[in-house]
């Protein structure tokens, strides 16, 4: 005999449908009300016309766009190089800080001091020190390119953050995993390389992607050294027209870069949470 849903089930399903229709309706109404209120407040403000002209002018947006976009390419190049180097340095710092070997004691100490300093120093200060201080030493092999010095500053600051993130991941791996690996005869180093690190990195991928988003945004700060990135390009445009729209264009471009990355991070995090729930069965 085929299955006939009981009246109880039909009743329950109807109630669930009614509830879901009701919440959709409430969401639509609430959005319309709040949207209208915001529009009235903003457009009704006494300075609205002036602000619209100096920040949201279509004319200036169009003329500034190519310059700002070519500046953004510099941000992207800096981002890619910095991200790659930061990942390597961060990993080395995390390994140094979690090692227990007495030979590595001085390395461990140095890594700790480095992390303490660069996690505390504002990036802007690091940029100024490295960008203007280092070339001032007059050592011949130190590059004078503001792009390189700016990238170095980003690397110095972010390696400290990323090192801490990876260290947290290493410490979050269940000690029983380490014990099981050692019981198989793996050495300390082999255990770290084949058992602990792969699990640690997997755990911290969402946090690392978050730092990547942050790095992408902060790459705009190298403009203070004079590197012609998106922000600096916008500044140049603004200086010619006395209209601030180019800054808004730069901001929009930065946001358009971070949104896909943010969504991707959310997706990765959700997938990991799901996997953890499934593992919770045992």
């Amino acid at each position, binding site marked *: 005999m085929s299955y006939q849903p009981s009246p109880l089930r039909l009743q329950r399903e109807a109630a669930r449908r009614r509830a879901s229709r009701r919440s959709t309706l409430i969401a639509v109404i609430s959005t319309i009300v709040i949207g209208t209120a915001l529009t009235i407040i903003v457009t009704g403000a006494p300075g609205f016309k002036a602000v619209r002209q100096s920040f949201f002018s279509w004319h200036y947006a169009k003329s500034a766009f190519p310059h700002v976009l070519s500046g953004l390419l510099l941000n992207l190049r800096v981002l890619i190089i910095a991200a790659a180097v930061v990942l390597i340095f961060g990993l080395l710092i995390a390994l140094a800080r979690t090692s227990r070997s007495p030979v590595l004691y001085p390395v461990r100490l140095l890594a700790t001091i480095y992390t303490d300093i660069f996690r505390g120093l504002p990036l802007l200060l690091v940029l100024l020190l490295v960008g203007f201080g280092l070339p001032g030493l007059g050592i011949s092999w130190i590059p004078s390119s503001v792009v390189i010095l700016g990238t170095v500053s980003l690397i110095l600051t972010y390696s400290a953050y990323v090192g801490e993130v990876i260290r947290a991941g290493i410490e979050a791996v269940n000690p*029983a*995993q380490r*014990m099981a690996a*050692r*019981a*198989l005869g*793996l050495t300390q180093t082999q255990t770290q390389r*084949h058992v602990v690190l792969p*699990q640690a990195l997997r755990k911290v991928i969402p946090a690392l992607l978050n730092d990547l988003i942050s790095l992408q945004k902060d790459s705009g700060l190298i403009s203070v050294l004079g590197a012609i990135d998106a922000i600096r390009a916008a500044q140049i445009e603004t200086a010619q027209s006395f209209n601030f729209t180019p800054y808004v264009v730069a901001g929009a471009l930065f946001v358009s870069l971070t949104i896909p990355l943010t969504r991707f991070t959310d997706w990765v995090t959700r997938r990991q949470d799901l996997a953890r729930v499934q593992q919770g069965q045992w």
Partner: protein
Amino acid sequence: MTKTMLDIINLRKSYGSDLVLQDISTTLREHEVKVLIGASGSGKSTLLRSINLLEGIDDGQILLDGQDITSVGVDGDAVRAQIGSVFQAFNLFPHLNVLQNITLAPRRVHGVSKIEAESNAMQLLERFGLADKARQYPDLLSGGQQQRVAILRAVITKPKVLLLDEVTSALDPILIAEVLSLISELKSEGMTMMIATHEMGFAKRVADQVLFLHQGKIVEAGSPQEILEKPKSAELQSFLGALREAGRL
């Protein structure tokens, strides 16, 4: 006369003022199976972890196949490479699939080539009905399957001694049966084993000798029949009484 695989002489260990092992002396011959029974905290796990040098000992000696593995300067990694260990919590590596879990030690510790290690592992998996799980990750396996994989991971390197620490305590009865039948199979192949367990029926079936531990001491030792049916000491009698009351004997 089979040779002595493991010789434990006057082992003593304490955590602070807490004496967890004292005057532990026993020998394990090649192909012999010894079962450790006793309440939780009686020292069974500590004894097993001392043998594979995951725990340091305070006094005494452990000889593995004639070599003193507790003397100063012994390479602990090399010793552990000759001993198989399986734990209550399986501890499979979640980022590696079954085949990678089993071949990790042969490849990294024993220098076996990837192809050879994988073909050995596949043979083993096939023999124990797990070949279809070779490419699966541990969290998709049942507890019994995970524990069987963990045991195969420990025996693929042909250890001199296999240490099993309450390997069925986290499993339900059906899964316990499949793990125990794998262990019986290993016994029939001549594997030398020291097993800590709460499964008395199983102890009776596989043990050549049963050791009863109480507060860090071997209180009684004998054949399964002697220990389980004719307990002499008051401690063992009350332990067996408690098991009977809990319906586990």
